[in-house]
């Protein structure tokens, strides 16, 4: 895909500055759109009110009762964050290892690393989590109370390490070829070139992609809540709505808002980081953007090189 040239915004290129007729037409579309959205909103509010979900009593606990936060939301948020941080911390070195292995000069190292990476990218995370959960129950003596966390982290690590392997590979391939040439010219061995020249730059280049992969990990922890009894944010909806009078909608809204705030902060940070790295004078100009994660997150296509 080509980079869009310069600061052109798609929003300003498909139509002219509106004249009188276009302004009238836009006003008409705005009105129709407002009517349509308003209709949907009215239906939502009406049915919410109908089921008594808008009553202040259903929403009040989240604003007036600190116990909701202390008992349910904050511990759940902590579990979400702990699982995500553990998964990221383990998956990153593992992913770097496999990413480098995929660039190896030896065919069998390249091929086996490639097979492992493609395999785990093609399997849904939930399947990996279910497998890990059962495997811990059968083959280890990890107690049932800590097993969900182990299972969630294992599933996340297996999947995300393979995605990160591709990100690392893209990061290394995105570096100018002169970097390797220069390292070879001053007599560095392959391992030294990787460890001292390529990897540090690649890690900087892929920081935006790493941060935005965190969003994927944070979102996937919710699978553990729904299927494995891991007590993270989504799992806190049921006890909250049971203890505070069937405030299902309110509980979902609060949980969704917490997720959105957390992930939106990460997304914004990632794109800020990307802009900063692209602007930087001292870098080689190689950046694996935040979007790379989504582009790479699909198996099946034979090895794509990083961005040009």
């Amino acid at each position: 895909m080509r980079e869009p040239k310069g600061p052109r915004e798609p929003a300003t290129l498909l139509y002219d500055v509106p004249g009188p007729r276009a302004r009238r037409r836009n006003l008409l579309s705005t009105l129709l759109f407002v009517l349509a959205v308003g209709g949907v909103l009215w239906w939502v509010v009406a049915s919410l009110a109908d089921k008594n979900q808008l009553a202040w009593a259903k929403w009040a606990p989240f604003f007036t009762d600190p116990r909701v936060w202390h008992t349910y939301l904050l511990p759940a948020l902590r579990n979400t964050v702990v699982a995500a941080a553990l998964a990221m911390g383990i998956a990153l070195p593992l992913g770097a290892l496999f990413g480098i292995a995929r660039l190896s000069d030896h065919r069998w190292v390249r091929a086996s690393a490639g097979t492992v990476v493609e395999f785990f990218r093609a399997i849904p995370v939930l399947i990996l989590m279910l497998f890990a959960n059962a495997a811990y129950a059968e083959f280890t003596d990890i107690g049932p109370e800590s097993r969900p966390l182990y299972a969630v982290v294992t599933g996340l690590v297996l999947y995300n390490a393979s995605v990160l392997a591709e990100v690392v590979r893209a990061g290394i391939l995105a570096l100018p070829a002169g970097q390797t040439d220069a390292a070879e010219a001053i007599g560095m061995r392959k391992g030294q070139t990787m460890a001292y020249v390529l990897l540090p730059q690649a890690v900087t280049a892929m920081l935006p992609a790493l941060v935005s992969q965190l969003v994927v990990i944070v979102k996937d922890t919710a699978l553990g809540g729904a299927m494995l009894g891991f007590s993270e944010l989504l799992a806190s909806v049921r006890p909250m709505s049971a203890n505070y009078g069937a405030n299902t909608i309110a509980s979902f809204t609060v949980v969704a808002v917490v997720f959105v705030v957390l992930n939106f902060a990460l997304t914004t940070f990632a794109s800020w980081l990307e802009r900063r790295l692209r602007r930087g004078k001292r870098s080689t100009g190689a950046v694996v953007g935040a979007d790379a994660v989504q582009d790479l997150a699909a198996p099946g296509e034979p090895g794509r090189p990083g961005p040009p």
Partner: protein
Amino acid sequence: MFDFLEGYDLLGAFWTTVQLTVYSAIGSLVWGTLLAAMRVGPVPLMRGFGTVYVNIVRNIPLTVIIVFTSLGLFQTLGVSLGAEDFTTVNFRLAVLGLTAYTSAFVCEALRSGINTVPLGQVEAARALGLSFTQTLRIVVLPQAFRSVVGPLANVLIALTKNTTVAAAIGVAEAALLMREMIENEAQLLLVSAVFAVGFLCLTLPTGLLLGWIAKKVAVKR
């Protein structure tokens, strides 16, 4: 060795997975295209709506959305999407949730495709007197679609894998059957291998085929 498979509807479960994928793919292609059109359109309110929708939906876990369709939409508000029995209701709710979520990614992929269409073509279309809708429909979108077959294939594969989340509301697809089989059978490794291979069979050919199509149809520039 594989006699533990008897008594389970393995093909049926994967068929449900495929159905979930196909219906949600069609739904999200339509809704995602509309969202993309709104996001590049001349009406500020629609642009705002598109941006807000994409940014919110992308940051909510799919699991939360799917569980909400069941606990919130169906059990609390009584939205049953015109279905009578429990199985159909859950299936349709899952399709609704998957569509709402995947459209955000389709929209973003399409928007990046719209960016690949050279500015000169758009200017030429406008110079000919084409309106915004005509420019989008006749000049921009056909080229944009051809350049985003690759990214859309990624979205489709992610969607295929994401259908497993429907297990959270009891849709009888592959992941739910896997959980049931793990509970009942003492063949953890074999059971897992069966499902892993099942998903490999779904995702790898899709990726290869669409990757090949993407190369074929891409506009050479």
